[in-house]
């Protein structure tokens, strides 16, 4: 499996990253070295094997669905580069 430049541009777009032409060439080459390495997993016979999405194959504890944390609105908004009153400021999204 190899990733071509067009696919990489789509991937970068999905990942919200920008690549110029030179970077596209470099990243393409480097990602394809990795995809060559991971290709071998496809050869393993796993027809009877369920995916293991989590290392703890047993019940995990759930807490009650109640609010336990105080609101730290001011502290959290203070972390934003641009905020006004109770809102984060972003570029215009609706025409």
């Amino acid at each position, binding site marked *: 499996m190899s990733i071509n430049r067009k696919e990489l541009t789509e991937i970068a777009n999905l*990942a919200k990253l*920008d690549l110029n032409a030179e970077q596209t060439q470099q990243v393409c080459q480097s990602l394809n070295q990795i995809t060559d390495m991971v290709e071998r*997993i496809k050869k393993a016979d796993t027809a009877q094997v369920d995916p293991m999405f989590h*290392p703890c194959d047993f019940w995990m504890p759930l807490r009650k669905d109640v609010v336990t944390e105080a609101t730290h609105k001011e502290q*959290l908004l203070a972390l*934003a580069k641009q905020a006004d009153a109770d809102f984060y400021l972003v570029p215009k999204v609706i025409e």
Partner: protein
Amino acid sequence: MINLSLRELNQLLTSKQISPAELGSVYLDRCRQFNPTLNALIHVQNDLAAADLLTADRSQSILAGIPLIHKDLFSTKGVTTSAASRMLADYVPPFDATVVGRLRDAGMVSLGKANMDEFAMGSSNEYSYFGAVNNPWDLSRVPGGSSGGSAAAVAARLTPVATASDTGGSIRQPAAMCGITGIKPSYGRASRYGMIAFASSLDQAGVMAVSADDCGLVLEAMMGHDDKDSTSILAEPWRWQAPQEASMQGLKVGVIPDWIEQLKDNDIKRSTQQALDTLVSKGAELIEVDLPHADLAVAAYYILAPAEASANLARFDGIRYGHQSAEPCDDINDMYRKSRNEGFGQEVQRRIMLGTWALSSGYYDDYYCQAQRIRRLISEDFKQAFSKVDIMAVPVSPEVAFKQGEKSDGVSMYQADQFTIPASLAGLPCMSMPIQPVRGLPVGLQLIGPYFNEQVILSTAARFQLVTDYHLQMPEAFL
């Protein structure tokens, strides 16, 4: 002073021969003196925190007054927590990670924050926005990664203890390359709340220190169920009890001859064999075991970890917190892209794109799900092995600390994790302890235990350290 065990430091503190402030100052002075040489720390405190010293005075814990350094991915309230990324270079969390809070409650006194590979992605600590960390044993070499700053800091005795995290080997490999002891407990033992996420089904907090006994004391204080982390297990925490004698009579130790054969460096091979001989000389029985699917572990890991990273790092949008581009932006997507491009380093971007690819339509089942199936096969391999043995003893790294800049491509760096990744995929407790150095550079032996059983690997390492002194050796330049 700087080579005393935590128990010895505790005796000095409880007998009032030294105060927590005086002890903290000894190490803080060392941080200021040696960090410019090592770059092990991103942040060194100007002064010890008064609140830490107050808690140290009141705490009854054996850890009261013991200094420590946190890896810079543990959120520390009011103290910058960057994960060694430009993205978070100015981020000051309004809360503490659970691990940080527990160790503070025990009375440990923070000295600063340790350098690391950006977002814990790396095996050499060369991928940090704040520059590479130098190995105290040879400044031209890497300390390993991603917890390279924590490992270098303990090795040079800038601190007696450091917190660290391990996703695919990030505690064990730097511990081995810096000649210290480091443990990653079972997945779910220590809370991940407030630990900046890389790959959530693999990340686990752990400890680095000089000895297994020191690691046991700190791990006991930091682990345990946390309601704020839904993957933290409810199992009873254990109390660490250091073994008083070195006998390993009756201990069945699994070894994988093929892994030792794969060591191309004959000196490391000899050192590993000598360590196994020491276990046998103390009564342990070596039993050959096999992990037939382990050769697929690195490939599976480099699908799974980037996939989880691509999802976890999607939160960094440059709007709510973290780096925001100052460039003019056409629209909100342009702002996301510019902020993320400027905020993330090359390796982080590479892994985000690799993970995005693995999760994208058309490849999800062939790669992501297939890697999860491989993960189950490896986990079953371990179950089979642990039906025959109590612990496993295997190499940590195929090489000693390598020169900075030596591994220029991702794949050769990734292969360096070949012996550490299998236990990570299975979520097992595992650690590295120092064995006979090679050509003046440290080497580690990896001990892996069955799920939940950290004590068996810690006590085996502690017994080994009763009859060896490799863990007490330190680089002369930092004496």
